Each structure stands twice: as C-alpha cells, then as structure tokens.
C-alpha cells in the first residue's frame, strides 16, 4: 500500500496521438448510441423517405422544371443536402444531453484530450450524414432518380459530408451555449426549415417572388444543392462549388470558434 506520489507516467502517447484516439473513441461511443436506438434509426430514415415520396408524387407534378429535366433528378440531390444538414444539427441536442446528464463532467475530469468530446461528436455526425445520404440515394433510385454514373457521385458524397461537417460545428456551438436539451432541440433545428425551403432544394428559385428569390440565391443551401446537382447529374463542377466551399469554411471556423469558446468558459464560475 503506497500513498506516495507515483512518478508521472512516461509511457503516455503524445498529445496529438491522444487527441486522435480520444476523438475516435468518443465518435465510436456516439455512433454506438445511435446504432442501439432503433427508434432514432427509424425516424432518421423515415423522415427523408417521406419527403422524397411527398415531393416526388404529391407536389412534384405541380412544380415546373426546365424543359427536358425530370423533377426527381433535381429533387434527390436537394433532399440529400437537406438531410446532411438535419443530421449535423442533431449534434446540438446530443451535446446538450451530455452536459445535462453529467457525462460531460466525467469526461472533463478525466485526462481526455480537451476538445475530443466536441471533435468526436462532429466526426460521428459527419459519418452519420454520409450513411443517411447513401440511404436516400438508394431510395431515390427506386423512385426514378437517374444520376450520371461516375466519379462525380463519389465527389458529391464527400462534398455532402464536408457540408455536414461545417454545419455540425454550428450545431455544437448551439449545443454548448443553450441551457437545456429541450432548448437545443428547437434552437438546433428551427433555422433549418426556412434555410432549406427558401432555397433551390425543392423548387426552382426563378418561380419565387423577387425578394425571396434574392434570399434564395444567396442562401448557402442553394449553393450546396446546385453544387451537388452539378456533380450528381452532369459529373461536372458547378459554379456554385466555390461558394459552397467558402460557406463550409465559414461555418466550420465560426462554429468551431464559438464551440471552443463556450467549452472553455464552462470552467468559469
């Protein structure tokens, strides 16, 4: 029995190594949590499928598309963008839940790499968005979606995960700044609806009144949808790609900054 201070452990992996290990471990935990919650899986998949069916068969016939373009081909690349955002937005609730349950306190009292709880969450939600995109893509094929088969599809998939990554940082920033999971639930999702509907995701921007068309044009979601369509339908890099990448960087940097600031402030009284 020894009560003396033991010598510092010298066999510790380096800081960057631990950051990676801890990020992966915590991302794995988040994904396991999702995998073992059948309800969450069903709702995550049912909602986009409903959107696909609703817009393909109910509204789709009434929506004007450019001549020779099938609506379903515009719809699916739009809906995957919407769902990449939804998937990323769930980070705010998850972060808030962990704060409320005391799990975050435990993580912070362990020699966990400081930011790994945040990066682990972002990684998990990015990968989850990637999976969801594949599911919607397959459902799209069933309802008549015909992409341009080629490397553009892989590029679009990576782009969608990049978009989810940027948005996940905004969601994490919301998660660390709100006071309860309930608030996170509404604050985390409410802004996605105007952003995705006032965009080119479901309808051509040219059919909107001028003021809305103006907003829809500068709306990052329009850029995301158009960049995705370029890759998926034509196998080409659309002019929207530049804006898309710029927005992703802005979201990641601003969201990341606010997340880290909020995280570090938690130790203050």
């Amino acid at each position, binding site marked *: 029995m020894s009560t003396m201070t033991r010598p510092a*452990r010298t066999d510790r992996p380096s800081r960057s190594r631990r950051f990676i290990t*801890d990020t992966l*471990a915590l991302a794995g935990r988040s994904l396991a949590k999702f995998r073992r919650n059948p309800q969450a899986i069903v709702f995550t998949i049912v909602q986009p499928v409903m959107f696909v069916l609703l817009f393909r068969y109910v509204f789709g016939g009434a929506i004007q598309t450019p001549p020779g373009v099938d609506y379903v081909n515009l719809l699916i690349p739009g809906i995957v963008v919407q769902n990449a955002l939804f998937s990323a937005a769930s980070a705010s609730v998850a972060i808030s839940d962990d704060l409320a*349950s005391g799990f975050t306190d*435990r993580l912070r009292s362990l020699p966990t790499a400081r930011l790994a709880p945040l990066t682990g969450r972002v990684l998990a939600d990015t990968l989850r968005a990637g999976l969801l995109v594949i599911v919607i893509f397959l459902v799209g094929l069933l309802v008549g979606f015909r992409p341009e088969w080629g490397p553009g599809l892989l590029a679009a998939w990576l782009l969608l995960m990049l978009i989810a990554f940027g948005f996940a940082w905004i969601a994490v920033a919301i998660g660390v700044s709100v006071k*309860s999971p309930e608030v996170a639930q509404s604050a985390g999702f409410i802004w996605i609806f105007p952003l995705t509907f006032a965009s080119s995701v479901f309808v051509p921007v040219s059919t909107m009144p001028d003021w809305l068309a103006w907003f829809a044009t500068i709306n990052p979601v329009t850029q995301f949808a158009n960049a995705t369509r370029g890759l998926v339908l034509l196998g080409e890099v659309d002019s929207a790609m530049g804006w898309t990448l710029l927005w992703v960087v802005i979201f990641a940097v601003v969201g990341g900054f606010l997340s880290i600031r909020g995280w570090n402030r938690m130790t203050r*009284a």
Partner: protein
Amino acid sequence: MSETAVLAEDVDVVYTGRQSTKRALDGLNLSIAPGAVHAILGPNGAGKTTFIRVATTLLIPTSGRVFVHGLDVVRQAGSVRDIIGVAGQYATVDESLTGRENLLLTGTLYGLSREERAARAVDLLERFDLVDAADRATKTYSGGMRRRLDLAASLTGDPQVLFLDEPTTGLDVRTRNALWEEVRAIADRGVTIVLTTQYLEEADALASRISIIDAGRVVVEGTPAELKSTVGEEILTLKPVDNHLLGTLAEAVGGEIVEGTVRARTARHGVTSVLETALAVGPLSSVTTTTASLDDVFLAYTGHIAEDEQPPAPTSRWGRRR
C-alpha cells in the same frame, strides 16, 4: 515533509448571474492527509459540490488555490486529472453502452493501452460484482448497479485521490450499506477518499476526519470523536410549559431552539446546574438527556439541523439535472 493529498487555500467561488451574484465558497481552507477518508459535511447549498468541482478541475475558483498532491488544479489541471477519480451523485455512465464498454471507454480516455484497459475492465467488473451484467446495456441496470459501475469507472485510472460527491444520495439503505463497504475497500488500498455528504451517519460511518462546512467555509474540523467532544458530552432537551419562554430559556442556558424545545450542551457534571438555571426561568413540561451525536455538532456549528430529505438537483453550471 509528508505531502498533503488535497490542500485548499482561501478558496472563493463567486457565481455571477445576470441578476445576482452568489458566493458559493467563501475563504475555504482544507488540508487532507494522504490515505485519509475525509468527509465534507454540510447542508444543501453549503458549497460541497462546488468544492468538488474546483478540486476536480471542472471549475476555476474566483480566487485561492487548490492542490492535489502538490499539483495546482488550475495550472496543472491535466496532471491532476491523471491522478484523480470522480464519482458523482448521478451515475455518469453512458446508458446505451454496456458496463464493460463504459469501462473500456473510460480506460481509453485515461490513455491505457488496449490490453491494459481490457484487463482493468475485467478486474473492476469482478470487484464490483458486475460480471453477470457486464455485457448488458446500462439502461437495464438497477440504481445500485449503476452506482457501482460509476464507482468502478472512477477507479479505471488507478487514482490516488477519489472524490465522491454525495455517493449514496437517493439509495435505499441496503444498497447504501453495500456501497459503504465498497468505499471502505477502496480506502484499504490506500486511496485517499474525499467524500461529501449531508448524512451525518455516513460521515460517522466512513470518515477518519470530518470538515463541517456552511455558507462556503469550513466551520469546524476533526475526527468524529473530537467533534463530538467539542460540543459537550451531554445534550439536554428542555420543553418549557409556556412556549413564550423558549427564547428566554435558550438565552439563559446558552442553547438553541429546535422544534419547540431548547437544546443545551454541557459536560456530564454540568447537567444539574443547567437544570437549575432552566427551572429558574419557568416550569418545564419535559426534560431528556442524550449523549452528543454528530447531529449536535452539526447544529452547534451551522445553526440548523442536518437535512434528511432528498436534496434538490445539485447546482451545476447548467443549474439543472435530469
């Protein structure tokens, strides 16, 4: 010089809200010896949880310093986290992971290698009698099993100092007694244990030293026996026939008013003189004498009775828990 396990020097914590500020710790001083089981006893809102949050690097104090084995909890927070374990009032395990997975995750975060953390998990599951439930999701666990898993997780890093924040709050008596046995077993391995509680019985049963804190500062400290002797050996509970005389009576005998009676402390040979003084004030309807307990110590130093009811959710930064 023998090193202190936990040393707190003039610690202030002031929470600044929009409308008000709250002084949670107010010049707290504390010194805990290695290998001790040290109880921090105090009513709700006394600052127990705040102190644990400071000592476990979760909260930076407004002023003052806290050291764990000589390491500053603010400046050397990373090194402090290597040598401490924390188990809270709420079992902070992940509900969707199994018991084993929770321990493996904690092991990873402590920087243990794959083999080390697997071995440690097996060892802890055995020690805490969780082998049968090891591969079940923890949401199926009973309250007592969760606490045991939480305690096991707090030991994953082989800590030198273990902080237990109200470890038995909300547990039934049988589960509580079992947990006490676990705590004693951990202490027997030489781990310093810092335990907050609002149960006097718990402090008496487990602690080698007790600090009573109230309003953010330590009001008295000592072994359970020392504390009991400081308040006198005998307690007289006096009930005057005329309730209006309670105040006068309390003043005359130097006691406190508790639930329509006056409690006075005295050395054993002083009982008769207290009674004489009391009877000079007015007739009494009842008199009982008891030997001092920690309850009386608590009352003497904090001015109120120790609370026995369930506490409200503790104050975290978020102000609420589920």
